[in-house]
């Protein structure tokens, strides 16, 4: 091989498509010829670039689940020329009471995107910049993954102060948690991260002073959610305190956030605000994460005058989280004021935490109540001393270990009483002292134990976090190992149990090995022994049993779940699925109707979808379409539901419905872009095309269904009809033959095949297949008429 290699040669060389002798010669040439070598490298680089794009593409979430944030005011965009210092303003990210936050581009010394906050007019700019400069050194040494770096600060040409921060593509923690319906343990895990960030800042001598949801953002990277605390140093520089100017505009509208402000910050005269003010604000944030509401009613605060706001924050004891939650339950009609979120019902609040009211109340009562209340103490010496202390306490709670916080002790109440009644008799005082002593003894014992268990708590937390990470990446083995490690520390750790069961369900889908089933059931049994009131654990147990074919046991488990909480819809719906598998469709419909009547079904399309599927089998087409529209109002682009809709429309057998069915089928086809195509999409597209007299399209779609691995009965019968209509009698007969062979394979002795995929029911009925076979026969008979006449369209429904 003397000459240089052509492009063709290079491709053949790389694909190994050459005899060994030529290969060797090519290799030698490439070693010696710099030109060919670089051309070869360029080819490889081009391929790599393409593969990189392809990889990127695969990582993207499917469109239908993407949730968009509220639109940004487009009118606020600025021209490319607008610039503050070295920062080019790109667009408004948001606007608050104190200023506007911009997305900006920094060019020098590094090119990066930053968030730039410009403070509204009305502040003493020089003073703000001076205070910022004073704290700059301290801000610069902060380095923590959960702390957004403060990069710069200064004054604009117009004389307004501005701050530059690391740009965080996230949303407020409360919104993130609600949108993803995080349960209490997951919320607490995120909150621990927030505590760590605040702890880091405190260690560097920085107090945040304005911790609130909009300053605690959550962003998701590689499937893991991480909190990020922004705006460190901003409040200090602005000397933000509860003053009439900072919380009211001229119109008397409240714009600040006194809800998160500690009593000592509320004191206008207060000068010594320390790290414990942040602990208070963390407590309010935790309160909100748990109960969905604030310790003091925002509406009351917003109606109150300035002095009244101060008094409330300083003096009024807020209700415990669990008390607050039950009080919402009682207030049925609440006034909705402008600018305030409409109040949610307790049921909704529980829903957003993936649980039911009763369970949520049980979770909050006791330890969590006391942890939150310890943060909210008016007297800062009674709060947690550090953010770390608060984080450790929450870890203890998560691991079912004793926490330090408790109801106000007898000694404390006694001291308060004595302070108020100095003339109280000595005898009473002596008795009180006795109980004080005993309480102190108990408390120091609790403290010692807590310290012992602290290390263990940390280990368990670590295991669970890593396990959840693995789970998000679908690394089942790694996840399993971590959850098992957590269980070896604490055999009753509920989070480890539910996570372990969940990964097994994902991992094996419908084919759970017997040993795994047994283990999952015994794990859930253990969890249920500790607390039989967990309706969702009964449900998980029932589903596992159903997957392994133990229908009686599954029914029993769901019934127990309904006994402990009849308002939790999932047990009703899962029970119905078992009945459906047993072909007891009337029972299934009844239970699904019960599930749909419960609150939980207003945000889950599953029971509606299943109800529709059962109704369709029972011949109740109109009812089925009504249920489908409910399911679609909850989850508009669910492929399975759209397919069900196509089936229901086709069952109505009118020309308009057939057209609508085709449109829906094409929509489904457009939605189905996943790596493994759902063969039923092509199948139903074929039937929809048939209903519209599009024989060629129908045949092509059926072919696709067959290739995608659909049960051959359906695409074959569709092809038999299509070929018959097109006058291809022989082909049609061949397909009919194939259907007759496939029928016993698909149905055996039964009349129906019932599948449950991701909880959704799908029925295939033998009677339907047989009716279609008849249609194929008559299509062959009719074909001559159609060939002579109008072969397209024409018939409403064969």
């Amino acid at each position, binding site marked *: 091989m003397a000459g240089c290699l052509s492009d063709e040669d290079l491709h053949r060389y790389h*694909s190994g498509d050459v005899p060994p002798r030529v290969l060797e010669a090519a290799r030698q040439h490439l070693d010696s010829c710099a030109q060919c070598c670089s051309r070869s490298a360029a080819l490889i680089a081009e*391929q790599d670039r393409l593969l990189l794009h*392809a990889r990127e593409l*695969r990582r993207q979430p499917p*469109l239908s689940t993407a949730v*968009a*944030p509220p639109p940004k005011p487009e009118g606020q965009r600025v021209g490319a020329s607008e610039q503050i210092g070295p920062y080019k303003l790109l667009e408004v990210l948001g606007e608050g009471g104190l200023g506007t936050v911009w997305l900006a581009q920094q060019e020098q010394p590094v090119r990066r995107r930053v968030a730039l906050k410009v403070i509204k007019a009305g502040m003493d700019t020089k003073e703000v910049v001076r205070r910022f400069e004073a704290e700059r050194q301290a801000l610069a040494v902060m380095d923590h993954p959960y702390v957004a770096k403060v990069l710069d600060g200064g004054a604009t040409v117009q004389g307004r102060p501005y701050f530059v921060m690391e740009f965080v593509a996230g949303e407020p923690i409360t919104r993130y948690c609600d949108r993803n319906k995080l349960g209490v343990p997951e919320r607490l895990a995120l909150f621990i991260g927030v505590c760590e960030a605040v702890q880091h800042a405190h260690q560097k001598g920085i107090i945040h002073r304005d911790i609130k949801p909009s300053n605690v953002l959550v962003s998701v990277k590689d499937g893991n959610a991480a909190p990020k605390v922004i705006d460190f140093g901003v409040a200090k520089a602005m000397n933000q305190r509860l003053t009439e100017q900072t919380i009211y505009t001229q119109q008397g509208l409240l714009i600040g956030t006194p809800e998160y402000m500690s009593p000592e910050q509320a004191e206008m005269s207060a000068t010594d605000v320390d790290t414990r003010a942040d602990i208070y604000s963390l407590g309010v944030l935790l309160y909100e994460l748990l109960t969905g509401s604030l310790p003091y009613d925002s509406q009351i605060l917003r109606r109150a005058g300035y002095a009244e706001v101060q008094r409330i924050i300083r003096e009024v004891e807020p209700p415990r989280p669990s008390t607050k939650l039950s009080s919402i339950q009682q207030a049925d009609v609440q006034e909705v004021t402008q600018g305030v979120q409409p109040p949610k019902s307790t049921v909704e609040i529980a829903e957003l935490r993936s649980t039911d009211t009763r369970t949520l109340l049980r979770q909050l009562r006791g330890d969590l109540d006391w942890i939150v209340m310890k943060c909210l103490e008016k007297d800062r010496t009674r709060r947690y001393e550090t953010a770390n202390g608060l984080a450790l306490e929450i870890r203890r709670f998560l691991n079912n270990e004793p926490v330090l916080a408790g109801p106000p002790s007898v000694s404390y109440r006694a001291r308060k009483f004595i302070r108020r009644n100095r003339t109280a008799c000595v005898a009473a005082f002596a008795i009180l002292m006795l109980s004080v002593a005993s309480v102190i003894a108990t408390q120091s014992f609790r403290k010692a134990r807590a310290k012992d268990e602290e290390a263990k708590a940390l280990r368990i937390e670590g295991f669970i976090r890593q396990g959840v990470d693995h789970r998000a990446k679908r690394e089942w083995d790694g996840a399993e190992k971590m959850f098992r490690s957590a269980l070896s520390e604490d055999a009753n750790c509920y989070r480890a149990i539910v996570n372990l069961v969940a990964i097994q369900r994902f991992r094996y889908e419908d084919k759970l090995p017997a040993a795994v089933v047994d283990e999952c059931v015994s794990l859930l049994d253990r969890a249920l022994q500790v607390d039989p009131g967990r309706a969702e654990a009964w449900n998980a147990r029932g589903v596992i049993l159903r997957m392994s074919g133990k229908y009686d046991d599954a029914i029993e488990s769901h019934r127990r779940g309904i006994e402990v909480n009849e308002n939790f819809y999932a047990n009703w719906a899962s029970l119905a699925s078992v009945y459906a598998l047993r072909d007891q469709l009337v029972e299934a419909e009844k239970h699904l109707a019960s599930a749909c009547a419960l609150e939980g079904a207003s945000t889950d399309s599953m029971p509606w979808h299943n109800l529709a599927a059962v109704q369709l089998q029972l011949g109740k087409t109109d009812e089925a379409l009504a249920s489908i529209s409910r399911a679609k109002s909850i989850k508009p682009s669910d492929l399975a539901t759209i397919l069900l809709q196509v089936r229901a429309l086709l069952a109505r057998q009118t020309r308009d419905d057939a057209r609508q069915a085709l449109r829906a089928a094409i929509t489904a086809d457009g939605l189905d872009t996943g790596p493994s195509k759902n063969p039923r999409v092509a199948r139903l597209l074929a039937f929809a095309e048939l209903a519209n007299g599009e024989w060629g399209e129908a045949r092509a779609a059926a072919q696709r269904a067959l290739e995608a691995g659909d049960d051959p009965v359906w695409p074959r019968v569709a092809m038999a009809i299509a070929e018959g209509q097109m006058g291809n009698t022989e082909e049609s007969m061949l397909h009919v033959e194939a259907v007759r062979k496939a029928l016993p394979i698909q149905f055996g002795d039964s009349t129906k095949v019932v599948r449950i995929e991701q909880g959704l029911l799908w029925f295939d009925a033998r009677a339907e297949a047989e009716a279609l076979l008849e249609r194929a026969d008559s299509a062959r008979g009719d074909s001559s008429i159609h060939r002579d006449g109008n072969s397209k369209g024409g018939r409403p429904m064969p």
Partner: protein
Amino acid sequence: MDTTRASLLLRIKDPADATAWRDFDAIYRPMLKRFATMRGLEHAAAEDVVQHCMVAVYEHIRGFEYDPKKGRFKGWLRTLVNNRVRNLHRNRHEDEARTQDFRRDQERELAPDEAFERVWMEEHLRHAMQLLRKEAGDAAYAAYTAYAIDGKPVEEVCKQFDLTANQLYKLKWRLTQRLSEMLKELLGDED
């Protein structure tokens, strides 16, 4: 079937060619949907924008002289969808309270034009991959993506698809090359 855009644009002018519109729909509907979503529209609003744009394409296409040298189609489509999204935002902005809020999705860090470029490229690639799958067959395609894209270990993929390592390497090179050709064909002279 000819899949270059030049020919696709010619074909959708022909009202009798029903598959052309389907092909067009398959590429550009998801693309517009993704772009609208990236620009911050929620599901229903994004659907509206997409529908509006598809109708506009349908109505204008007959008068649309496609000139492969000028790259007009891409620019035209980008202007169309951008204007629509902007109008929607502007109308809403008037009656919506502004909240202090940071943007969520990392994709939204991109400026609209950068975002359009990215979606343009990626959605064509997605379509090219579908064509590749059809051409190569499901089994070969599955082995290819498992190894070349998902980065599964050679031994695992070989075992699963009953291939020798050498065959797998060949497959990777051959299909990547084919994918690259298909993408170039799809993008035409515009990129």
